[in-house]
């Protein structure tokens, strides 16, 4: 069940992140400034989507591996606390 949680959480976050980038970039690049306004045919889909997909895919991969690593650590060591071992919270 944990791997399902990790997969679906990471996928949802990745989808939301790429949605925000696409909406803002489409708002910037179209004349009428709206999503689905009919101007979207003027831009090239490869140029539009590739950088966003690459960045969000990397984030998705790192989220999956980090969360899976934390989960595996927890299985081997029940006292392992991912949140307490998070570097930002070790202040």
């Amino acid at each position, binding site marked *: 069940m944990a791997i399902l949680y990790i997969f679906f*959480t990471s996928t949802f976050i990745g989808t*939301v992140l790429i949605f925000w980038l696409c909406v803002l*970039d489409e708002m910037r690049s179209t004349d009428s400034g709206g999503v689905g306004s009919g101007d979207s045919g003027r831009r090239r889909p490869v140029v539009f989507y590739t950088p966003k997909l690459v960045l969000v895919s990397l984030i998705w991969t*790192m989220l999956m591996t*980090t969360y899976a*690593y934390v989960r595996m650590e927890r299985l081997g060591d029940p006292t392992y606390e*991912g949140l307490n071992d*998070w570097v930002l919270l070790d202040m």
Partner: protein
Amino acid sequence: MKGSMTGCSWICEYSVTLCLTSHVIIALRILLSIPLTFLHIHLINSRFLTVNISNAPCQYFNSHHREIVLAFLLFAYCLYLFALLVLSFTRIVALTPPFKFLFFVTLFCFVAVMSGLFLGYFYPLATSAVVFLSFYAILNFYVWTLAFAYAPLGSEDG
């Protein structure tokens, strides 16, 4: 009269540019401070923590290294989104009030998701009920707001 109007519009344009530039610089400083603080804390911790890297082969690229790579990727994402926000600023100002509301809800969710990712609240571990409920309530609220905002209109004669 025309000259004074031109001068006034120039001053207004200049002040808007100055204000926008100062806001950009302040936002960039805030965005830059996130990964730098992250890296600084990690470097301080690495002096005091004793990590036995011979226990597991994957410890050479352990959880903290992954978290740092993830933080830099998220920082790059924040920069990208911030650049798009600045470039589409005039279109955001010209939005109708309902879509402005949607835009501010989106900004609120963006801050919530980013703070959740940077602080590790989406970890697959048991957290407090307040944290769990807050994040999932915000995300559910956002998804249902989007569904309501982009729902197709019914036909008027139907």
